């Protein structure tokens, strides 16, 4: 039956062919393009068969949001509008997803924080919305520069949380993200994060899939909870929240539903491993020192490894691609031989180091840092310097960088 209804091979109104996603991502020819991360988000959306995109301006995601507006003008997005605030945007995203649409939005920093109430609601309502988070500082004094603190707040919302290193990751993961998110045994929202500016405003080479291929459309009837339609109006879900009836059944239902959300996060593991080729990537894990990082800190780690190689120091690398579900077993395995585990982060609290410490045996092997925060950059030299200090070697002084 399913096959007779398949849209694969048919064309949409823009003349793009609905293509099997696995073939589109893994077998279709790729064209190298020199784009900013924001332009790459637009190009991914062009191929995503997205029904609704809701926008609100905040640096550094405004450019991507504006570019998707161009895409709407060209006819590639079902509907597009600007919400009244980030809180409104995320609520409107919920409405659109309840209504059976494939939904996309972009946000950053204080905007993400403002909308926070909606994210556990999305997970609880099992809405497979995709939200791009272009991380920036959230504290006062104001900073628009990259700082990954908001990811820490997203880790316990029940959303899937991925952290892209490059614009290439972004392009691939936006499209693959819907495939994981929309699986009936997952059906959860995805927070696809990157470090603002370092990815969004950086021009880099990205290999794009053909413009005339797009994802198959979202099928809301694959949802594990009844999707909203004329048979199942929204009032049925909202009128009698379980917790309002103070009896055994209502409490048990509420508790088991929370467990079900986190079980769904766990069930996403197998799909994520298939699409992203693992939750982590590793290099030289037999080395005495291993850098474990996510996002731009991975890139800076790669450069630090080059600097150290020039001095004859061998250093391994673990790129953590997925934060929820947490790749605990993978990290334990990858770091089992390491004497020193160095975790560079673009935030002041070191949330990634804390997660790793809670995961591995002998957690005093974890060196939380170096840290930069409030929009500072992380030169590879300071990672290399920290590693040399750990190994008891002499290192350059980085204090007076002018002299």
């Amino acid at each position, binding site marked *: 039956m399913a096959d007779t209804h398949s849209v694969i091979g048919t064309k949409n109104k823009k003349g793009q062919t609905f293509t099997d996603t696995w073939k589109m991502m893994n077998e279709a020819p790729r064209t190298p393009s020199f784009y900013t991360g924001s332009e790459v988000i637009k190009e991914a959306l062009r191929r995503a068969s997205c029904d609704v995109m809701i926008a609100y301006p905040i640096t550094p995601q*405004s450019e991507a949001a504006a570019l998707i507006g*161009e895409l709407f003008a060209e006819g590639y997005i079902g509907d597009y509008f600007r919400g009244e605030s980030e809180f409104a945007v995320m609520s409107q995203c919920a409405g659109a997803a309840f209504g059976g649409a494939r939904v996309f939005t972009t946000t950053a920093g204080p905007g993400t924080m403002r909308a926070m109430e909606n994210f556990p609601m999305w997970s609880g309502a099992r809405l497979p919305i995709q939200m791009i988070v272009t991380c920036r500082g959230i504290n006062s004094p104001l900073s628009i520069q990259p700082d990954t603190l908001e990811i820490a707040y997203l880790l316990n919302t029940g959303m899937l949380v991925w952290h892209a290193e490059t614009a290439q990751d972004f392009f691939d993961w936006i499209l693959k993200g819907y495939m994981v998110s929309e699986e009936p045994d997952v059906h959860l929202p995805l927070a696809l994060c990157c470090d603002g500016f370092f990815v969004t405003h950086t021009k880099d*080479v990205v290999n794009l899939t053909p413009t005339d291929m797009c994802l198959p459309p979202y099928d809301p009837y694959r949802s594990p909870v009844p999707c909203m339609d004329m048979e199942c109006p929204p009032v049925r879900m909202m009128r009698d929240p379980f917790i309002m009836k103070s009896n055994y059944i209502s409490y048990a239902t509420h508790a088991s539903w929370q467990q079900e959300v986190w079980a769904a996060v766990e069930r996403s593991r197998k799909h994520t491993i298939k699409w992203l080729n693992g939750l982590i990537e590793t290099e030289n894990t037999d080395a005495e020192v291993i850098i474990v990082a996510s996002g731009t800190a991975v*890139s800076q780690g790669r450069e630090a490894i080059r600097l150290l190689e020039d001095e004859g120091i061998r250093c391994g690398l673990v790129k953590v691609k997925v934060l929820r579900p947490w790749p605990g077993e993978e990290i334990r395995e990858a770091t089992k031989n390491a004497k020193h585990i160095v975790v560079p982060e673009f935030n002041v609290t070191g949330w990634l180091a804390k997660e790793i410490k809670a995961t591995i045996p002998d957690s005093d092997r974890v060196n939380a840092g170096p840290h930069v925060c409030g929009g500072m950059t992380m030169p590879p030299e300071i990672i290399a310097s920290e590693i040399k200090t750990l190994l008891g070697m002499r290192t350059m002084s980085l204090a007076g960088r002018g002299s």
Partner: protein
Amino acid sequence: MIKKRLNVRMSGLGGQGAVTAAHVLAMAANRDGKFSISNPFFGAEKRMAPAESYCRIGIERIYDRGELVFPDVIQVFHPQVITMGKSYTMPFYSGVKEGGLVIINSDQPLLSEEDIQRLKDLHVALFYIAGTELAIEVAGTELSTNMSMLGSVAGITKCVTMEALDGALQERFGKKFVASGGTASLDEAIKKKFAKKEMLLAKNLATVKAAYDIASEWAEKNQYELRVGNPAVAA
């Protein structure tokens, strides 16, 4: 000196096109078959506020991004970067690598004796170009100052070819380009200065070429060399 990586820091003021210049330089390097990455660094988007951008060009894949703390080349787009400290580092040449290069857009010298001595100690070359005057003379608008700066860094280091710069400029200005509201309105402003888009491209390219020639001649006369390439092969 031939290096595997050339790191260029462009320090300018909002509205001068430093961000655009870094993007165009990186696009040109990419066209030349080199590896390149560019990114901006700025606060609120407003005219005359400090704005920096960075372009990294190399012979192997580049991962490093963000503010360039240890640049090989520093380009000062506006005297106020130096005279009023409108820079993310103090002094503006902080972190410059030994044997590096400082290019300043000014029609008169701006550095103190102390600054000159510190740069000399690091064997850093100093090149002044009256880039805004050149832009007014060749393109008829100071908005093309960033073209003078592009031409000067290319002329001295030969990190990109004129042909690639031509292609990159056409790519950047030849089609509709959506970035921030600020960038979009500046794009509109510069387009209004020219009767036709072709004229804009031609005048901008002429400005790049004029600066390229001046800078090229200076490098030859002063026997200054800073190139991107494989040092092992060169040796």
